């Protein structure tokens, strides 16, 4: 599968001249495949925004290389095929439609394509009514939508979004989620950094969890959510008291209990030996939040070197 965004053993350090060097990313490798929605997670100061800024060419890697759409990071013409939304949207204070035309034109778009794209994206993000209003008078949610609009106006192949729904109300979030799913359906690749784990869980094909500058876990969302260590056994025709770990006994006589994978076979044979019947055995589903907390609450080797909060406080771009 081809990668549209690839980090290859990238290390990024800040400071170093008259200031102690702070490592934001260390030996960071990641590949985002074409046509997928990749969820990029991590606690504050993990290095997510640094990773995004490296891809966009805003900062330069201390070591290692990376490619975006088959070109090295920082290749200006390639950015015409990319849509980027920064965390805490900051745009020039101009009327919304003119602002979109400005950013579209910077990406080489010209009329009538630009006029059509501007009109369409304003309509999609329900901003048509405020197209002539200066964005300086916009609410935070509206600003976030205009930020998304400027990222989408050039119909990009790759979307890099840093917290795209953080300021939106639930309806706005649903609308953006649908927009992203439609974009994926149209063959776009989306690299999505967010703290909203439920959102990530709902739409991302794969997830990477960054912790203290290192990739702590990566995989398909469905695989990550499926525990490999525990499974739920549902049986019939056995007394619940025979299984101390049983969580409940339903009205139809079903007994449910969770067992370790290693003990699964023994427990099933015990059900049979008691004259019971196995109804189903399923892997236990975990939430992304569980995994996130589990991974990020354990300090990594790098983290211990960085002396925790002090390192985070000094890191200039880790605003994720």
């Amino acid at each position, binding site marked *: 599968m081809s990668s549209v965004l690839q980090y290859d053993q990238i290390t990024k350090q*800040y400071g170093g001249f008259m200031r102690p060097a702070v490592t934001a990313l260390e030996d960071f490798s990641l590949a985002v495949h074409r046509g997928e929605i990749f969820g990029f997670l991590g606690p504050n100061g993990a290095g997510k*925004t*640094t990773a995004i*800024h490296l891809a*966009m*060419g*805003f*900062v*330069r890697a201390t070591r290692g290389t990376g490619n975006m759409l088959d070109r090295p990071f920082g290749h*200006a*013409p*390639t*950015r*015409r*095929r*990319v849509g*980027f939304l*920064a*965390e*805490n*949207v*900051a*745009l*020039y204070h*101009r009327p919304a439609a003119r602002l979109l035309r*400005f*950013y579209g*034109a*910077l*990406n*080489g778009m010209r009329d009538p394509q630009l006029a059509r794209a501007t009109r369409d994206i304003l309509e999609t993000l329900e901003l048509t009514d405020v197209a002539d209003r200066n964005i300086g008078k916009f609410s935070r949610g509206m600003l976030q939508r205009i*930020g998304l609009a*400027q990222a989408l106006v050039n119909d990009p192949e790759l979307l890099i979004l840093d917290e795209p729904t953080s300021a939106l109300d639930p309806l706005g979030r649903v609308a953006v989620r649908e927009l992203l799913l439609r974009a994926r359906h149209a063959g776009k690749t989306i690299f999505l950094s967010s703290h909203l784990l439920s959102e990530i869980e709902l739409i991302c094909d794969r997830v990477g969890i960054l912790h203290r500058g290192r990739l702590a876990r990566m995989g398909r969302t469905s695989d990550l959510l499926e525990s490999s260590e525990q499974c739920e056994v549902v049986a019939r025709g056995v007394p619940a008291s025979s299984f101390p770990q049983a969580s409940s006994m339903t009205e139809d006589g079903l007994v449910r209990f969770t067992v370790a994978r290693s003990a699964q076979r023994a427990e099933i044979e015990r059900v049979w030996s008691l004259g019971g019947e196995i109804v189903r055995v399923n892997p236990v589903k975990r939430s992304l939040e569980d995994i996130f907390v589990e991974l990020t609450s354990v300090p990594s080797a790098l983290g211990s070197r960085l002396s925790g909060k002090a390192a985070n406080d000094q*890191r*200039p*771009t*880790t*605003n994720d």
Partner: protein
Amino acid sequence: MIPILLIAGNFVRENRWPLITLLAYVAVFGGGVAFLGNPSLEDTTFLLRSVGVYGLAFTALLAASGINNDRRTRRMLAVLAKGIHRGQYLAGLLLGTMLGAVIYGLVVGLVGSLTLARYSRSPGKLWELVGVLLASFLLTATVSLFFSTFLHPLIATAAAALTLGAMALGGRLLGGPWTNILPTYALADAMVSFSLHGWHAPWTACGWAIVQAVVFGGLTTVVFSRRDIAVAVE
């Protein structure tokens, strides 16, 4: 070229209030003195010299603040996330500064021409002075922009003033062709000694000023292309 024009236009728009204030000062104060008062020709030439110095200070501050403002407000990210080179962004800022400077020069020229018309004097020398001012503005803006890629705007302005001052000193001390090669002394002298009689614009020095602006522009691009531009959320 279009991205440069877009960034330049946007830069002028973002800085329209200081620019309008300065233009209003020249138009209202200069025009008012010329038409309502009864200034002598010496007073008029003194006013023209002083607005030249204001223009230099304005250009230096405007050019030095461009990068810092965009960086501090994080607006730079959305611009440099588009398919443009950092050199194009800098060229846009410089062009925007020079657009402001040209507008300022035109207003100075127009107000001065109208004033001189009262004395039935030809404004030819005045427009030559405007040309010299624009060359000076260009060099000042480029040097300020260069220092602003790695210094705070106020420090960058001071560093630009020191650099231009050192060039002036060098030109003065070395003399001969160096007066033009290090053109700031020749330009400053032309500004300070401006008069309607026996004054000649130092065009050779203006040419060298443009050459040095190109060199500083190149250096600015090289330095800025290697800088990390992201900043923490306020």
